[in-house]
């Protein structure tokens, strides 16, 4: 029995560290996009500037939603680890819904910008903006799909060492996306108003 447990713990450790290394390469990806954005921020090609386009209040709402979802995601893993399946699932569903709310707000913002003629083709600044924030949005979308899969998995197989391992990896991913967003909020949205 203990041998089996040890093996599953080893597997857990390896999976967690492997996934962590993936997240580290993702940091490098986002660092490049942030550097690009900061360099091209003022290259508006005679169009509207960041200060005219972005609303920090809107971004604050997005930030709070994502922060809350990061919190519920952490609680979900914790509750599941304590074999509290119903509460853990509820928290996971809350994470999922908040994630969907976040991506909807972002899509709403993107659609508005494009409809106003401020698309990624307008200027180098907007290209860099859409690439940076859009890449984060794609990550969030993948996270939402993952959360749906986790809900189904938990309902089907219950709280096992496998489902706990998968949940831990998902929570790492989700917390990481929240961290990236903090910097997007600071540099892109708050930095625009300065």
């Amino acid at each position, binding site marked *: 029995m203990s041998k089996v447990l040890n093996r599953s713990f080893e597997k857990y*450790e390896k999976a967690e*560290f492997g996934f*962590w*290394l993936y997240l*580290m390469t993702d*940091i*490098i990806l986002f*660092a*490049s996009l*942030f*550097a*690009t954005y*900061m*360099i091209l921020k003022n290259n508006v090609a005679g169009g509207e500037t960041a200060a005219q386009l972005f609303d*920090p*209040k809107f971004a*604050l709402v997005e*930030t*709070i939603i994502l*922060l*809350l979802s*990061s*919190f519920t995601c*952490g*609680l979900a893993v*914790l*509750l599941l680890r*304590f074999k509290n399946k119903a509460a853990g699932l509820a928290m996971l569903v809350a994470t999922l819904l908040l994630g969907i709310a976040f991506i909807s707000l972002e899509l709403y913002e993107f659609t508005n910008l494009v409809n106003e003629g401020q698309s990624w083709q307008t200027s180098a600044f907007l290209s860099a903006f859409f690439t940076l924030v859009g890449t984060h949005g794609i990550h969030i979308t993948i996270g939402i799909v993952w959360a749906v899969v986790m809900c189904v998995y938990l309902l089907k197989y219950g709280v096992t060492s496998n489902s706990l391992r998968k949940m831990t990896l998902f929570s*790492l991913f989700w*917390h*990481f996306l*929240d*961290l990236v967003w*903090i*910097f997007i*909020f*600071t*540099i892109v949205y*708050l*930095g625009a*108003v*300065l």
Partner: protein
Amino acid sequence: MNQPKLAPLIGKYVVGFASALILSTLAYIIVVEQWFESADTTMAVLLLLAALQLAIQLVCFLHIDMSGRSRSRTFTIMFTLVMMMVIVVGSLWVMRNLDYRMGMSPEAMTEYMVEQNKKGF
């Protein structure tokens, strides 16, 4: 093996969430209420707040510390953060410098290069 209790673990998340919320809102208020006159000072303060929030979330949500189990994760993220700074600060440095030189008139550029050549390499 002593079983960990649920309440203190949840407490850690609550602390992380509350401080992240406060720091984000504070950053927003600083910008909207224009606490600082210069944009550079404001940006420096904002980046400081973001870095603080990064540290808090790493500890509270991602459980990064120097204890045995998360040690390798701590070292890899420290290394990655250094690489991140190299990419971001390095790019900004090079491009600002390029921008500065591109802004010169041809005469000023010639003068600048003669000046630099005198200094030697």
